[in-house]
């Protein structure tokens, strides 16, 4: 059974802007799924419709087999939403935010208290439970939104840029928490602008662009499409001119730094052999750009260019 099955989903806002132009998307139960796309691509509209915050224009949404139109209560019971923007009553204490949310899902108070304590402890917020929301830092508010979304123990958790604006340490701890949650069986759909996050966490991916699914595949299959990769080499000694390394395309950045573009036929061993033959020693190397980020830009820009070319 699909955790999420969306067919021909469209959304036209008042004024005529068509945000979604017929989305078909299936997410397997238990998947950790990334939904990527540039700003204004339609990600938030898509998530808004699935989580019942936005009215769709046409199409069908099914969550674990439940049809959103026929049984909206069953669909909503299955979903936990962590929205992109804070949507709290800032004057309420932390614990009340979580308990109220449990109450909205019909969870009795005694059970809600047990669950609230569990999730607030797991997300390092238990000590702050009596603090008003407005006193929390941005990272704490992000974690609280996760606790709030989990209190009814949803089978499908949707996170809309959950780590935006949080520091690296908290981001890593949130990743670890989400991995554990997924391992326990919760299906997770994540939108993010940190492509490293998608690459690190997710198994499958869809790229949405201009209201349409531009690509829907596994992360590994997508990365296999990457034909070239660029590395930046920090050299031990100085080089005054660009060396000749058979088959490798080099670029001179400064006398201690080179950039090398490698295609799929090249190996790192081959590169280092060639460098050694030329007496060049390397202190360190790094990817010039996140691999997924590069693919993403190629895909989005390529489709845009193709679309614009077609129109012209």
């Amino acid at each position, binding site marked *: 059974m699909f955790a999420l099955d969306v067919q021909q989903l469209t959304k036209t806002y008042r004024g005529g802007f068509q945000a979604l132009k017929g989305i078909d998307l299936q997410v397997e139960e238990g998947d950790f799924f990334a939904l990527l796309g540039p700003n204004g691509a339609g990600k938030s509209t898509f998530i808004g419709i699935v989580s*019942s915050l*936005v*009215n769709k224009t046409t199409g069908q949404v099914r969550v674990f087999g439940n049809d959103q139109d026929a049984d909206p209560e069953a669909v909503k019971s299955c979903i936990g939403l962590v929205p992109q923007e804070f949507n*709290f009553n800032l004057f309420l204490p932390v614990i009340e935010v979580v308990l*109220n949310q449990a109450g*909205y899902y*019909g*969870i*009795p108070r005694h059970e809600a208290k047990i669950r609230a304590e569990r999730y607030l402890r797991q997300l390092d917020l238990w000590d702050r439970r009596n603090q008003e929301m407005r006193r929390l830092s941005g990272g704490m508010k992000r974690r609280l939104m996760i606790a709030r979304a989990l209190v009814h123990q949803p089978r499908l958790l949707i996170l809309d840029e959950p780590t935006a604006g949080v520091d690296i340490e908290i981001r890593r701890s949130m990743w670890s928490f989400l991995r554990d949650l997924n391992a326990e069986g919760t299906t997770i759909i994540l939108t993010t602008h940190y492509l490293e996050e998608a690459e690190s966490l997710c198994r499958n991916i869809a790229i949405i662009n201009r209201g349409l699914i531009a690509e829907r595949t596994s992360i590994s299959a997508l990365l296999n499409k990457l034909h070239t990769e660029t590395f930046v080499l920090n050299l031990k000694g100085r080089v005054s001119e660009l060396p000749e390394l058979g088959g490798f395309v080099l670029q001179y950045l400064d006398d201690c730094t080179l950039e090398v573009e490698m295609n799929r036929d090249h190996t790192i061993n081959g590169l280092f052999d060639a460098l050694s033959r030329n007496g060049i020693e390397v202190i360190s190397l790094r990817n010039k750009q996140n691999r997924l980020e590069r693919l993403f830009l190629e895909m989005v820009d390529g489709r845009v260019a193709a679309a614009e070319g077609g129109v012209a």
Partner: protein
Amino acid sequence: MNGLGRRWTRYAVTFQTILSKEILRFSRIWVQTVLPSVITTTLYFVVFGRLIGDRIGTMDGFAYLDFIVPGLVLMGVITNSYANVVSSFYSSKFSRYIEELLVSPAPHWVILAGYVGGGVARGLVVGGAVLAVALLFTDIHIHSPGVMFLVCLMTATLFSLGGFINAVYANSFDDISIVPTFVLTPLTYLGGVFYSIQLLPDFWQAVSMANPVLYMVNAFRYGLLGVSDIPLGAAFGMILVFIVVLVAYSLRLLQRGVGIKT
């Protein structure tokens, strides 16, 4: 427990959660929500009742101070039940925490009942407090506590629904004060709070009959003093019709997501 039983238990928990949240909200800020109405009506009792009222004499056979008590109590009920829902629901829209409810499986009628319940609670608390103050200034013998309570309850329900609809359409904090200032206050003052419509010329008596607040004030006056310018059945019937219409309209707004969904 079967599926239906579980579903109703879930609804009951959701309703209780919204209602408790609403009651807690106005209780926490009672100095802003409950106290002002009590102080204002106390001033009415002192100025219109004690100082000026003695010179006015009797109205419908009652001392003027006694005559205005029902209207002042109901005025507190009307303004507070309306204000509670309009400000609470609009704030939840403005700060977007209404989304907490919209993503949950709470049916629209439970959401509406919860917010209206909060408005009714505040209306009854303020009405009760104003009545308590009134009893300090007068020696009224309550004619029919049942009628009095029922009128209060229905009036608070009706104006809570009005506050809800206002909040749904409001796009700014200014929008939530327009109706109370330009509609509710004139209707209340011209609804027989301070006078009997028998004192008006025939034409203005007929015009007054189009004012729904007149029916509520008179029904409440019957409950408190045993006199009314309007037949009791007509008053209850009219309030009930308004409640049914506003409930249907509010549910339709929620169903369509007006003001809360794009």
